[in-house]
């Protein structure tokens, strides 16, 4: 397949995955905020931290309240990381890759885009926002469904899978980063009271609650949640699983020698870490390291297969 097409499909998958993850995270976070007492040290601002978007936010807004944070992360096209921006980029990439995919896949993304455009105003109130987020999550899942039912496991699909899993692993580490607040030694008693609920929300934001329960058969607790989301090989959103997927794609694409060295190193260091007795600072460093290594892999993918490589 054309290098140009490979690049577009890879980005299409990244942007769509980002769209879906953003929708899920915003939706879960809203739920969490509705449950939390007002004086607990979890705020809308933490959401900006997860997206690494505090600086960009304060360039556009003053107060990180619910209205502003939500607008910035959901509908503001001045924020290239907002859900609507991601969806726009995804649509542009699939619009220019239509010859590679079942028609329904394009139509699905296009319909989501039209829906978002039409409903941008209703996102200002909570009810409207819930409806939009649900529709977006459903739409992204339909897209994945169309592909799994009608697309060959050809090179095109490998690049979609690559993009999806690089993005997914990245998002999981970002969500887990918020755990450093939950684990801080100086956290308030109020927060400690709600700890269980908070960890449940972390699982929910990755659609992992049910699978976690089935697998761990243990009450929700910090060590198990972290271990599960970082090391489990079967859950689709755990970091290890995502890396495995990327490596599988590499094999299918007949990767050049050495392309997975970086990921192998990442997996070994992850597996060697005892997640159960990690300090908040160590956790933060570990997650940071994973994000950096994912960035390295992204660059390697680009220089191996994309148009600029020639």
């Amino acid at each position, binding site marked *: 397949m*054309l290098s*140009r097409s490979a690049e577009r499909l890879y980005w299409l998958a990244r942007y769509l995955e980002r769209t879906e993850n953003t929708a899920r995270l915003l939706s879960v976070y809203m739920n969490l905020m509705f449950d939390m007492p007002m004086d607990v040290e979890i705020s809308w601002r933490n959401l900006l931290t997860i997206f690494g978007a505090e600086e960009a936010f304060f360039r556009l807004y003053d107060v990180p309240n619910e209205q502003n944070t939500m607008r910035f992360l959901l509908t503001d096209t001045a924020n290239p990381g907002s859900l609507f921006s991601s969806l726009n980029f995804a649509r542009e990439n699939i619009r220019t890759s*239509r010859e590679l995919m079942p028609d329904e896949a394009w139509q699905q993304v296009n319909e989501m885009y039209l829906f978002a455009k039409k409903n941008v105003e209703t996102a200002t109130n909570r009810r409207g926002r819930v409806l939009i987020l649900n529709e977006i999550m459903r739409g992204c899942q339909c897209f994945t469904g169309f592909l799994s039912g009608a697309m060959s496991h050809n090179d095109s699909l490998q690049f979609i899978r690559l993009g999806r899993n690089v993005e997914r692993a990245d998002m999981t580490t970002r969500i887990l980063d918020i755990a450093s607040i939950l684990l801080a030694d100086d956290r308030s008693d109020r927060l400690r009271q709600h700890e269980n609920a908070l960890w449940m929300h972390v699982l929910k934001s990755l659609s992992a609650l049910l699978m976690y329960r089935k697998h761990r058969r243990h009450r929700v607790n910090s060590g198990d949640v972290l271990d599960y989301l970082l090391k489990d090989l079967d859950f689709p959103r755990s970091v290890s699983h995502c890396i495995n997927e990327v490596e599988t794609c590499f094999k299918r694409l007949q990767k050049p020698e050495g392309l997975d060295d970086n990921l192998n190193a990442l997996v070994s260091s992850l597996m060697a870490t005892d997640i159960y007795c990690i300090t908040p600072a160590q956790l933060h460093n570990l997650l940071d390291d994973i994000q950096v290594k994912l960035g390295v892999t992204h660059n390697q993918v680009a220089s191996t297969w994309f148009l600029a490589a020639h």
Partner: protein
Amino acid sequence: MDSLWEHYTVTDAYDEMRGPTNQARPSSDRLSNYLAGLDHKALDIRKTAADMAIMEMGITFTVYSDEGNIDRAWPFDIIPRIIENNEWRRVEVGLKQRLKALNCFINDTYNGQSYIKEGLIPASIVDSSSNFLKECVGMTPKFGAWANICGSDLVRDKDGTIYVLEDNLRVPSGVSYMIENRVITKKVFPELLQDLDVQPVDDYPTHLFEMLVSMAPNDIKKPRIAVLTPGIYNSAYFEHAFLAQQIGAELVEGADLIVQEDDHVYMRTINGLEKVDVIYRRIDDRFLDPEVFRKDSLLGAKGLIRAWKAGNVALANAPGSGVADDKVVYAFVPQMIRYYLNEEPILPNVPTYLCSDPEQLSYVLEHLDELVVKPANESGGYGMLIGPHATKTEVEEFRKVIKANPRNYIAQPTLALSTCPTLCDNKLEPRHVDLRPFILQGESSFVTAGGLTRVALQKGSLVVNSSQGGGSKDTWIINTDR
């Protein structure tokens, strides 16, 4: 009962669906009756459904404006246009005949120009054509087929005669919309299509594919085919992507291609370079190859012409085909048919005055207010004068333009383009239409069943181009014999 038709007033133009006394023509009998059974609300529901489908399917065309390029939804009128099968058979044969003669002409142009020696066409006309490419002299593509894809514009005059208005032999567009229009009609009027014998149109991509395969160099059985697009900012990008998808070809841009020392064309893939055998190019000649034509072109690929001349890649349409896509050359097509094929033309030309001829020029200048004057080499309906609809100042302005460069203009009588019932504000009103069928020629010839009907949505307007506010209709070739 007949509420929709009660207020329908046929003009003095030929109406495709209703006769002079507003009675349904035999081929349109059923459609007329069916529509009569719908009230305004039912029509509106169907129109809304069609608009929705167009949005969701993402059927767009790009318009250039000051605010940048905008993707506009494809303008579609839900009322189909009907042509009777027996009439269409004759048109189909006429179109194949025409393209064959045009291809003979192009081949002759680049190989000896026997027609000039025989006094058929003045040498000056070909020499001065901006679409004549000296680089093509001496070439003969397979089967002598230079123009493999042609879109001819047909119009019907008052008395019902179908004329050929022009032949688009460069990069004609619209065929994807013809196919998508039918998809939408199937959603909007499924019950109607069940009762009528309407010929399908979605076999076009299969024929396009087969034609492209037949053009492959060295008789490669499974050639690698690419559609070469100028990119996403081109007004027809939707169509390029659509066709690539329909024929399973790669959609490439110039930067994806590279011509190596061995004079073969390769594309840059994830596994390195892969050879390309046939290119359906949707880029104008001048931008194809900076090695030969415009040096500043980033759209094409360096060395493409070299590879083509070496016989290592087929280009459809062949470079230089545009020499026959010239409104002056158009005037000679009936003679070409007689000269090359020894046949009588089946489809008439619109009478055409050549401004390059002093006698004809003076006639044109005296009758500017009755004539349509067109530049020889423009497409898209730009830079033309419609005499009867123009102001005095416009006419005088145009007089100067013609005098300055007579070779570049032709004039034709203003035809009363036929009309077709069209949904305007929930009512049916007559609007002028033309028709663009698509003709393929490779090893064999093919004509689409009908084509793209374009409709001027404004009352009285004759301008059907989508870039200038025109719409489109599904076109039904109906068999009424059974």
